[in-house]
């Protein structure tokens, strides 16, 4: 029975020493240790959180960069397209002007040719008339150079009148 009979002295000293150690450890060990642990856990958590945040920021930055790059690319394409359009327009414009000018010049040339042709024809006609008159003069001269020939002519002419 000695084993299960609690001794008064031991209980007394146990209360004293346990109370003492509880008080001292609570004040000088547990409170600072637990506070420090809590602080450290928080700082680790904060560090992890900020790392995560930095990662996200980096990601955002990267996607932003990509967006800027894409924007730049589309702008470049746009510029190129514009330039191409302008070039084409210029070429087509130039082509239009040139063909018009050509046309105009052709028309002028054609007109000139016509004019020249008409002038040439008129001159030719005049020449032909002059020549005809001269020829006629010469013929008349030759025809009317002798009496015989005049008679023949009159006869011929009279024959024609008869026919009428």
């Amino acid at each position, binding site marked *: 029975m000695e084993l299960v009979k609690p001794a008064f002295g031991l209980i007394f000293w146990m209360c004293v020493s346990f109370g003492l150690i509880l008080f001292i450890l609570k004040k000088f060990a547990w409170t600072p240790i*637990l506070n420090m642990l809590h602080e450290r856990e928080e700082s680790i958590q904060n560090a992890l959180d900020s790392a995560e945040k930095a990662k996200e920021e980096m990601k955002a930055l990267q996607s932003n960069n990509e967006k800027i790059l894409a924007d730049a690319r589309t702008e470049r394409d746009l510029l190129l397209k514009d330039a191409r359009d302008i070039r084409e327009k210029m070429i087509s414009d130039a082509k239009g002007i040139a063909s018009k000018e050509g046309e105009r010049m052709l028309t002028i040339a054609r007109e000139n040719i016509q004019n020249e042709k008409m002038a040439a024809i008129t001159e030719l006609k005049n020449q032909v008339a002059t020549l005809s008159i001269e020829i006629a003069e010469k013929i008349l001269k030759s025809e009317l150079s002798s009496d015989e020939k005049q008679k023949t002519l009159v006869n011929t002419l009279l024959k024609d009148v008869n026919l009428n």
Partner: protein
Amino acid sequence: MTNNNNIFKPFSVSLFLFFASLFISSAIYAYDPDNKSTEKQAVGAAKESASEDKKFNAGELIINHITDSHEWHVMGEGEHAIALPLPVIIYSSETGLTAFLSNKLEDGEVYKGFKLIKNDIVAVDGEGQLDEKASAKLWDFSITKNVASLMVSIFLMLWMFLSVAKAYARNPGKAPKGMQSLLEPLIIFVRDDIAKSSIGEKKYKRYLPFLLTVFFFIWINNLMGLIPFLPGGANVTGNIAIGLTLAVIVFVITVISANKNYWRHIIAMPGVPIGVLVLLTPIEIFGMFLKPFVLMIRLFANMLAGHIIALSFFSLIFIFAEMNTAVGWGVSIFSVAFTIFMGMLELLVAFLQAYVFTLLAAMYFGTAVEEHHHAEEHH
């Protein structure tokens, strides 16, 4: 629901341990009466002739080692025993406070009207006869072996934790070093897996210093008990007074911090008809006291059993050596092997008992401060 499951697991483990310890301790008690009779025989034999070879008595040896004593036995036997005398402090309403070293009472001598009979200090009259009336009035505040061991372990704890606290203050926010890294996981274990999970996030902080102190107090005293020589070797946590004191403190804290919900569940369990309440309420009230009582018995029986088993294996050597020296040597191999094995097991048990005691204490606090909505979940 997961919380419930969490609680249940360690609880079933502790239940198993409790029954295991009951089994072991019942085996000890079965052994006990036998001890008593052999003890008496041995004492009688010793009185008859001191010169005669004293027979080895395992029961006596074990009982002497596991009970408290007024001297700290180091080595040797009988006349040649070397023991550290410890202060005896006696208070009596008649003679007041008396203090002297225990070696004054060696071999049944009378000193200042006191005498030591089987570890108990009693008052004697002028003729050296036992004065029962005066003895009943004695208050024994002696620094016994267990008290001295208690103080050693308390100084050890103070040194450990104050130096660790200083280390935390010296390099705040840095990685732990040395002793810090040994104790930090344990402190975090008690905080997260015992206090937080059993009491709850909101209220665990109030109980944490007590739980940490209890955990390390039991664990370190258990470990000190495993050291077979002077600073250790005392059966502190295997003494019922220690378990009793701790259990009473747990009980007092539980009752003081208990809220309305806790008392309502004990006095009138909600949702239970009156007819059943007549039966249930006494059981609940009985259970209130039973819980700390079980805490006490579990710690006491487990640690006591460990000491007894280790000593029994050693005693086997001498029991066999008495029959035949060669057999004694032969048995010693197995005994030492078994004692090493038991020592390993005891290392585990030392930690486990500290864990179980702390966990159950935390669970009792947890039920005491449980809020209403949480209680509904269990029904």
